[in-house]
């Protein structure tokens, strides 16, 4: 493994100063992606700047909406009652990510900034309308998460910027969300496919129709994507078995998966058909319908 210098700033300002002044520098949060890349010689870095000691990046706040600091670990997210109750898809995404050891150190900011098509928090955050707060030496800017990802391991982040955290809105009462991670194993696995859904219904009564829908898919494209056509199809409809099945078919058309040793394209498409409906059903169950 290549030798590197390790820096431990305590403020965002200090971290941004270091990343601008040091040669060939990268941020490290939990290190569960970047250290693997270093060992495998897929990354060549001279300076690692740790975000671990920056208090400003940590924590979950709930008020007008939800704020999750980028340095919040998956274990911390898993312990949040607010997230379990109101942002359930994110709880789903975090609970089977890696292993307990990984969840203890890996951060949500790292998971998003690594921008893997299989990132377990990406689809949940997409359906939960997350906005990303980015800090750079010249100030801060907000980006919709959907506009944040560019491709595999590529984001809109400039190399001298970092993500401060994620802002999620409050959702109306008749809202439920879910994420299904389709894997070969029950733990320590990456998804063959990830499907997230958020559904807001008109009211809680029988025969209600869908007011707002969000469907996101992982591992079906170079980046986690929203299934916009599927979402439009769902709005205004009662969510019957037939509607959910058709939603799955539409989503499958929006998906462009590839063959890989982790799963074949045809299988991933088939699973989109099946799991979109199941994800919607899970979301509905969570709003008590």
């Amino acid at each position, binding site marked *: 493994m290549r030798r590197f210098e390790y820096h431990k700033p305590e403020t965002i300002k200090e971290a941004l100063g270091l990343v601008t002044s040091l040669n060939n520098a990268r941020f490290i949060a939990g290190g569960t992606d970047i250290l693997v890349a270093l060992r495998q010689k897929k990354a060549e870095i001279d300076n690692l700047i740790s975000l671990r000691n920056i208090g400003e990046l940590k924590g979950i706040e709930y008020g007008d909406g939800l704020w999750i600091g980028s340095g919040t670990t998956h274990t911390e997210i898993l312990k949040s009652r607010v997230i379990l109750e109101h942002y359930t898809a994110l709880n789903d995404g975090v609970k089977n990510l890696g292993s307990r050891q990984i969840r203890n150190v890996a951060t949500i900011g790292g998971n998003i900034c690594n921008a893997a098509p299989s990132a377990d928090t990406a689809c949940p955050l997409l359906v939960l309308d997350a906005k990303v707060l980015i800090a750079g030496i010249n100030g801060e800017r907000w980006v919709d998460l959907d506009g944040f990802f560019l491709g595999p391991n590529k984001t809109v982040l400039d190399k001298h910027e970092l993500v401060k955290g994620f802002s999620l809105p409050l959702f109306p009462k008749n809202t439920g969300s879910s994420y299904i991670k*389709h894997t*070969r194993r*029950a*733990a*320590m696995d*990456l998804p063959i496919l990830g499907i997230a859904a958020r559904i807001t219904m008109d009211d809680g009564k029988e025969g209600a129709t869908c007011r707002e829908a969000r469907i996101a898919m992982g591992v079906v494209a170079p980046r986690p994507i929203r299934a916009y056509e599927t979402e439009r199809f769902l709005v205004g409809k009662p969510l019957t078995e037939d509607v959910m099945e058709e939603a799955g078919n539409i989503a499958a058309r929006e998906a462009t998966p590839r063959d890989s*040793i982790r*799963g074949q394209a045809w299988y991933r498409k088939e*699973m989109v058909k*099946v799991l979109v409906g199941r994800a919607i059903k899970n979301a509905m169950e969570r709003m008590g319908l």
Partner: protein
Amino acid sequence: MNGDVLSLVGKNIPKKDAPLKVTGQAQYIQDIKLPGMLWGKILYSRYPHGRILNIDTKRAERLPGVKAVLTGSTIPDIKIGFMKDNPPLKKGKVCSMRDEVAAVAATSPEVAQEAIELIDVEYEELPGVFDPVEAMKEGAPLIHEELKSNVLKLPWKLICGDVDRAKAESAYIVEDTYKTQWVTHCCLGTSGCIASFDVNNNLTMYSNTQIPSLAQRDYIDALNAFGLKNKRVRVVQSVIGGGFGSKLDTYPYEYIAILLALKTRRPVKILFTREEEFFATSPRQCTLTKISQGCDREGRLTFREMEMILDNGAYTSWGATTPSVMMMPISSLYKVPNVRYTAKCVYTNNNYSQAMRGYGNPQATFAIESSMDQLAEAAGMDPYEFRMKNANEPGEVTPQRFKITSCGMKECIEAVAEKLNWKEKRGRHNGRGVGMASLIHVGGGARVYKSDGCGTIIKIDDYGKVDVFTGSTDIGQGSDTVIAQIVAEVLGISIEDVNVINNDTDVCPWDVGVHASRTTFVAGNSALYAAEKIKAEILTIVSHMLGEDVAFLDIKNGVVYSKRDKEKSMPLGKALRSIHYATGGKMLMAECFYDPANENFDREFKGNLSVSYAYGAHGVEVEVDRKTGKVKILNYVAAHDVGRAINPMLLEGQIFGGGVMGLGYALGEEMVYINGVLKNGNFLDYKIPTAKDVPPIETIIVETVDKDGPFGAKGIGEPGLVPTAPAISNAIYDAVGVRIKDLPITPEKILKALKEKGAEKLDEA
């Protein structure tokens, strides 16, 4: 043996070295460092098949800290392995990605790694062949040109009775083709060794081999070939982090360490990374099997015919002899009078294969037990009834001339059916189903080598504390504890008073190795007889001291006593001191070399391979998600005829471990080689089950008390994974009506089969 008065045999005694392992005190090869030790590192091939045009080592040699660089042309000409086809460092040609091309010794692992990257090798890439069927075709690239064929000259062929006539007379016949995949052992402890020469060129090898005596022989042969005649070799085994057959041979890296140590005159350690453990150790070979079986109108098996092709990879290890062990289930799993079997091992440009737990039996049993269900269906019989009708029984002599002594196969099948609630749960075809499969395995040693023996030396001190020197290795399976239990039981002392030494060829007697589930039986008997010898000597002397007939004396709780006269007794320590501290005194020692009365196969591959045979049956209830193809194990029952459980807890550990390994084999594990390149050499993409994937496994221990086993025990090391895959496959068939004939049974395969069958629509209608 007097089963009613046993005090240690049959008890759950924790493994003796467990505290050391749990606290991190156990010394694995990873932990061992010698003064002045260098680190060796290997450069592997860049192509699966190619000519080596030039190797330039100059840049590596100039790197500070590098003490030696070796290539195929700078070492003596030797070839290792079962067919002597494998040079430790390749010269002229590479035949697989795992081929060792050059090696360095340096002052640190980092420098060694850097040096490896500085070696420039020029290749001319050659067309490769990666499928054994392709490799047998006319004009296929030859792996070893001098052999003129890719088919190994190992004519595996077993013929019993008249298969053609039986075929003509059968009422029902089924025929199919089954495939199994490459899988690897996944030992927690990666491979490694340290080679160290003294000033007289005697070699000490620190190793985690599971065949210390045969490895010693291999190293001596190598030293002779290097021109070092008549040298001593000592093999010292560190604590071994799993074997499963992976350490049943000696490998290029060990010879490379020896050559580097010889060149540098310093100890050299080679330690594999996890990546190397995946791509540079030898996996279980994949197989292609054609099987047909028939039965008469009443459901009695009439014949079994199998043809098999095994991917040998580029070189040959002991693993090429797995067809000889496959013959066991093929000829003797159930009563089948007519048998025909042929197998070909074929060279390809894949990594070379080796034995793995079950030694061919899992591959053969997958085909046999899947086919048994097919045949039962063809004959209109319940697979359970069909198995019971054909099950082996005590006293039988099988077509391969196996003499079946103890046999609890029927009890195992019955127990599994009962626990699974078979009658009620089978045949519902509603997404849930049950399946079962049985097994036979050698349980009383296996004469695959010229000797199947194991030696034991016992000495006892002035206080009744015992040292047992056994040839047999503990690879985590628990032989250290089982041997101690046997000796303590015989000598009437506590288990804490028995120390087992099993890791040094300088002091331990010969043993053929930890394989064939033979350790409890062979090493156990060896220890048992040695302990009985020393006990007889003690009792004879004490009978004079106490004035009691020796026939009435025994030892219990460390006291020699008369069974008929309570007054006549003496603490064992006191007796021993009296024997020692006298004119012409004596310290007691005893030895035994036990070699079971089993037979090597004759030219027709017939003979009584083992003194006794282990049986078992596994049953599974599964739930299959018809939409995703995912399989959930709801219930898992494993029944094993073990003769006698010497330590039920360790025995269950073997069954759990085997079951989990079998589960991985059945449902997830597969080394994905694409054109000879391993694509998933890591634990993320190689799907070994995690703790969360393992269902509760219910064990049923059937005790048939084998007449030849130590206290009646038979082997249990391998059986646990033999019937797992077919049991699961049969259950999936019962659940959703599709049979997957190539392992692993992935959701993709199930879904594809369901779609082909149109089963989904039928179900919805």
